[in-house]
């Protein structure tokens, strides 16, 4: 059985160590916050906050308190606020230990594409280019294949890049793969998934 969204998020949470400052992207990465457990992980929201808390209870929403996905959130006892220039200073300056992001495509060299589809979808890169260029470790969480069943792990990305050679670890519904300078290594398979299944579903070179 391939992993579902929550299992992928739970697996990604295992990569986080006590004391880390971490940035979580939109989508499945947001769910990682549910599996942090007892570790003291400080979540950064790149619109200017460290120490992001859970969603508010109904009636307690504050228009001045949102995350980078524009969702209402809450603060914690250790929260701090700052402006966008300082926020990206800490990202660019390598102070954020890891970013967990979604992706449209990842190449075997660790190239990442997740910000636009020419002629179809023009949303913008937001903070993704800064994050992948600056943080200590980039962890991608995504489905292994697209809705047509085609591999999202490619020899070369076909979409405009967010960053070149930036991805360190890929967690998909089929397993966990590490990016090495020679290609991808399978570190772990989802329950009931074999290395052969992963190879069959992957266009990128697996070494």
């Amino acid at each position, binding site marked *: 059985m391939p992993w579902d969204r929550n299992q992928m998020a739970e697996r990604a949470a295992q990569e986080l160590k006590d004391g880390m400052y971490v940035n979580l992207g939109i989508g499945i990465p947001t769910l990682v916050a549910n599996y942090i457990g007892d570790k003291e992980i400080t979540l950064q929201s790149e619109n200017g906050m460290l120490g992001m808390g859970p969603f508010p209870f109904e009636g307690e929403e504050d228009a*001045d308190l*949102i995350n980078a996905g524009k969702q209402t959130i809450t603060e914690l006892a250790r929260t701090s606020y700052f*402006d966008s220039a300082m926020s990206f200073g800490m990202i*660019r300056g390598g102070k954020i230990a890891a970013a967990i992001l979604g992706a449209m495509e990842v190449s075997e060299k660790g190239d990442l594409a997740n910000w636009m589809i020419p002629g179809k979808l023009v949303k913008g890169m937001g903070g993704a280019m800064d994050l992948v260029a600056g943080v200590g470790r980039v962890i991608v969480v995504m489905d292994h294949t697209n809705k047509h069943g085609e591999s999202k792990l490619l020899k070369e990305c076909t979409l405009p890049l967010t960053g070149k050679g930036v991805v360190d670890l890929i967690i998909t519904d089929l397993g966990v793969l590490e990016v090495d300078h020679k290609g991808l290594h399978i570190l772990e398979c989802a329950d009931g998934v074999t290395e052969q299944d992963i190879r069959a579903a992957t266009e990128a070179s697996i070494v």
Partner: protein
Amino acid sequence: MKKVYGTASEALDGLLHDGMFIAAGGFGLCGIPELLLQAIKDAGTKNLTFASNNAGVDDFGIGILLQTKQVKKMISSYVGENKEFMRQYLSGELELEFNPQGTLAERMRAGGSGIPGFYTKTGVGTQIAEGKEHKDFDGETYIMERGIIADLSIVKAWKADDTGNLIFRKTARNFNPPAAMCGKVCVAEVEEIVPRGSLDPDQIHLPGIYVHRIVQGEHEKRIEQRTVREKA
């Protein structure tokens, strides 16, 4: 010198002209200068270029100036929530320069700090790097990005004193300080103007040297994605 004005339109009087370049604070709909944007709409100023992280939504924020076709060009990192923006961009009516979010914030901060250009790793090996100077430092490749100096900055703060010292609230700070810094003139709209001496000097987020005009007003403060959790 008097910095306090009665209305947003009065605060912008004499500052607007067609074809000008405006830097605006805000992230999504959070901390946007909503009253000043409405006053620019009312003034009918055209062919505007905006440096702003987002373009609002169809009927709020910079979106209201897109509806009236007052905007010629946007410099933004993310425009995903605005259908009219997408329509104008895809039909060629509107120019769009995508900047990575941190690069945009730093371009504003640098422009306001006397730094005409800086090097960053952000965007190396992507479309963003095309045509830009590349330079290696300590074995890593960086690209040069330019500081932004805008004709006018419009920002939103929580509190101000009459000298323009500003305090922001929670994540509504976002792009407001760097946007304020990069304008030749900066107009700030605030929820409350308090008497001189009532703000703690140690708690000022943006000193009044960056703020030339202030207006107090009622803010709608719309929420883009209202998200809540169940009570256990």
